[in-house]
């Protein structure tokens, strides 16, 4: 059991070390979703400070590729941003 654990650690710590060219280098671009951690801020149309972070200067909603928000939370974000725009808050 001990040996197995050691092996696993080695691999995870050095994710950029590739065996072949076609292997995907995981870990370089993957970031965890900032809205689904513990004690995450509430996604709501009244919480403008949060929503402002996910809107560009021109008022467009940022894509989840850039912000690395999970699929479920991105859906909620778009809904709440649109609501805030109706009320003239954003």
């Amino acid at each position: 059991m001990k040996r197995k654990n050691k092996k696993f650690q080695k691999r995870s710590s050095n994710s950029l070390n590739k065996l072949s060219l076609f292997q995907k280098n995981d870990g370089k671009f993957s970031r965890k979703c900032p809205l689904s951690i513990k004690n995450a801020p509430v996604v709501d149309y009244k919480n403008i400070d949060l929503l402002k972070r996910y809107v560009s200067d021109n008022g467009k909603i940022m894509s989840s590729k850039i912000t690395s928000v999970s699929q479920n939370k991105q859906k909620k974000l778009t809904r709440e941003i649109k609501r805030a725009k109706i009320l003239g808050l954003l």
Partner: protein
Amino acid sequence: MAFYENTIIAKQDLAEKDLKNIKDKYNEIINSSSGKVIKIEEWGLLNLANKIKNYKKGFYIHYKFEGNKKTLDEMDKKIKVDGTIIRNLIVKYKKLDTENEFFKKEK
């Protein structure tokens, strides 16, 4: 019965008396049509992000209430006729949190 939130934007050039009248008016409308008001918040005078009906500022009033279809129909009817209200938004919720206030005035 379900929980709802209703936000009203009133015109900026109103006297304090009129604002109070509006606040009481919709409080009564909800309570009289088989609904129940849980909380009323006043967000105060805020800048609008873009012009709405040629107004740059608006006075926000926020209701949290419990009701059914009858209350919503009654509200919609009254808001449509009301000339002092620029815009409104009704959102349905499964649960209302009455503790957090995002637009509290800091003094």
